[in-house]
């Protein structure tokens, strides 16, 4: 009992130290951290289990925002759809900590917390992430952990090829042993289904969708298919380039912006494409550090600078999204009120004139 008490105290202290966010954490640590975020910020943080993995584990998101009596608009962020990209869950943790740390004192973050809810999934591919922590030989696992079918003995489907967005058309493999295996059919994977289900329910409310990956230092805009353009491609590029500029201002790192077929490779069935297809206007993939020197095994001493720059990039997108929705909203209300008042003034002026003329005639 003393040992377990000691380790419980140690974990609590650990998570309040600054250097918690400069280390990678396994799934049980991240789960405990989510509980802690709820405990420490009960008025702004709640959690939601919105699906199950193949191995029947919970897929959990944190919902963060100031409570409101009216239905709120939302920002979606998910990390860790690919198991080996450990910097991504680390970023989700950093992002949550940062908005919780600053919302009381930073007027802009406070305003966004008031008007928006952030739906953040620190680890989407829970089975794969846990598997990548098993030992050194599993560290570079990418896919889910569902078994192969039809006599194929390999495991896993690439979750980011499994969404109902031009599924199976390009940049995928039909070999279940391949790292880009798209599955037996779209949404064969319960993890992809969980996200699809949530996005479907929240479709009217989600203003921006961010999905976090590594590596290559890119900001990708829809679509992954080379022959299909998003209707707001220009807007997506403008916002993406703004985010890249914000990233570069932090530590000088270059992030390239473009569609996946332009700057990386063609692909289909991605969550980013699905989000754009169902009408979420601002949908981006972040590929974080580095450019290949360490690749997936990014040193822990790069977690902090990577998170700092990615935070600046994400905030650029979120601020744009928020201001477009809420300052346009205010502008529309104001304009409508002014029009109303003007119309009322004109109507009454005309009527009074008629009355006067009528009285004169009479």
């Amino acid at each position: 009992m003393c040992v377990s008490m000691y380790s419980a105290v140690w974990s609590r202290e650990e998570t309040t130290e600054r250097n918690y966010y400069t280390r990678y954490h396994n799934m049980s640590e991240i789960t405990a951290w989510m509980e802690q975020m709820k405990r420490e910020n009960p008025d702004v943080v709640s959690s939601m289990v919105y699906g199950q993995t193949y191995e029947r584990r919970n897929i959990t998101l944190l919902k963060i925002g100031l409570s409101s009596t009216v239905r709120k608009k939302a920002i979606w962020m998910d990390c860790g759809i690919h198991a080996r990209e450990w910097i991504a869950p680390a970023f989700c943790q950093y992002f949550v900590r940062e908005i919780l740390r600053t919302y009381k004192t930073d007027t802009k973050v406070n305003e966004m917390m008031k008007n928006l809810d952030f739906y953040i999934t620190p680890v989407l591919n829970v089975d794969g992430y846990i598997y990548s922590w098993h030992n050194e030989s599993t560290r570079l696992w990418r896919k889910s952990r569902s078994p192969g079918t039809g006599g194929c003995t390999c495991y896993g489907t690439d979750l980011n090829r499994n969404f109902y967005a031009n599924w199976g058309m390009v940049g995928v493999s039909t070999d279940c042993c391949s790292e880009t295996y798209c599955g037996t059919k779209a949404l064969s994977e319960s993890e992809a289904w969980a996200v699809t289900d949530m996005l479907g329910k929240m479709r009217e409310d989600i203003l921006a969708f961010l999905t976090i990956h590594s590596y290559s230092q890119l900001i990708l805009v829809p679509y992954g298919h080379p022959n299909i353009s998003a209707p707001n491609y220009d807007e997506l590029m403008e916002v993406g380039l703004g985010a890249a500029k914000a990233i570069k201002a932090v530590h000088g790192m270059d992030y390239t912006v473009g569609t996946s077929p332009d700057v990386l490779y063609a692909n289909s069935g991605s969550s980013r494409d699905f989000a754009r297809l169902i009408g979420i206007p601002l949908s981006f993939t972040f590929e974080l550090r580095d450019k290949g020197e360490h690749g997936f095994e990014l040193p822990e001493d790069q977690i902090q600078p990577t998170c700092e720059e990615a935070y600046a990039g994400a905030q650029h997108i979120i601020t744009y999204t928020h201001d477009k929705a809420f300052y346009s909203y205010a502008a529309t209300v104001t304009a409508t009120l002014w029009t109303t008042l003007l119309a009322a003034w004109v109507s009454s002026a005309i009527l009074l004139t008629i009355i006067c003329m009528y009285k004169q005639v009479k």
Partner: protein
Amino acid sequence: MGWTLLILLVVLTVVHGNPTVMVRTGSGPTVGFDQHPNSVPLGEDIQTTTEGESEVVEEVMTTGVLNPSHYPARRAATVVQHYLNTRYGSPYRWIFLSTVHSGSAEDVAEMGRKYQLELTMQEMISNVSGQCSAELFFPGGEGQSAPQVQASCEGLHQSNTTAQEEAFYQQHRASNNLVSGNNIPDSYGHMEPSMKPFWQLGGVASSFIMLRESNESTLYNMAQVANFTQLETEKDQLRFNYHVLLHEMISQEIIHWKLLVTWSPEQGVQVLQTELQPKCHHCEAPPNTTN
């Protein structure tokens, strides 16, 4: 009469000025959830072939001036990076692509494709940058033939590695204390400082394979040195067996190679033997213990 007019006034105001505020959620038409998400906007043309295998859309190769931030220039530039490491790399000199400034590509009638690139390369240990002009040729045809590269760089050789290389060479030349290591970097991206030159040497040695295996549809990086073992020094060359993991970006595969590597300050890095390790499919089964 007056009351009627007043009521009329109020009614006019209310009916006209009912604010219906809509939050704009994006320009352009949006696809309804009930509409098939796979639907393609009218007028778009997709060439698809219904084969059971991987790629089903024909990739059209860009010719002419290349966009430096698009993948064709970047993939070609990475091949130049691999080439430079085979020529100039060492345990203390490891070169990476920094920026693509400009490039162009052209078909060479029925033989392949030729690229011309202007690049900045960076040496990772000394942080010295250099400007490079490169030409590379990807042979076409059935056989898997290595790309041919020519490159000239200014400034990259400014890093003076002679002293470090010599010290390292002398330290490990005697065969009474052969070195070995594994998982460099480890899962957390860490490595012992003493292992760093072996990691760099592994990266340079991997460049020989990555250069040989590259084509316009690949982008290679070394993911990790799984293990290395020093062998007896022969003919004044340090000798090592390396097991490296390469990451191929387009397929996302991790490819295992075993290499026999030699190095000395005079001779540079040589790769004498390479052996592709097959992917271990039965290794993928779930472990007995669960987290």
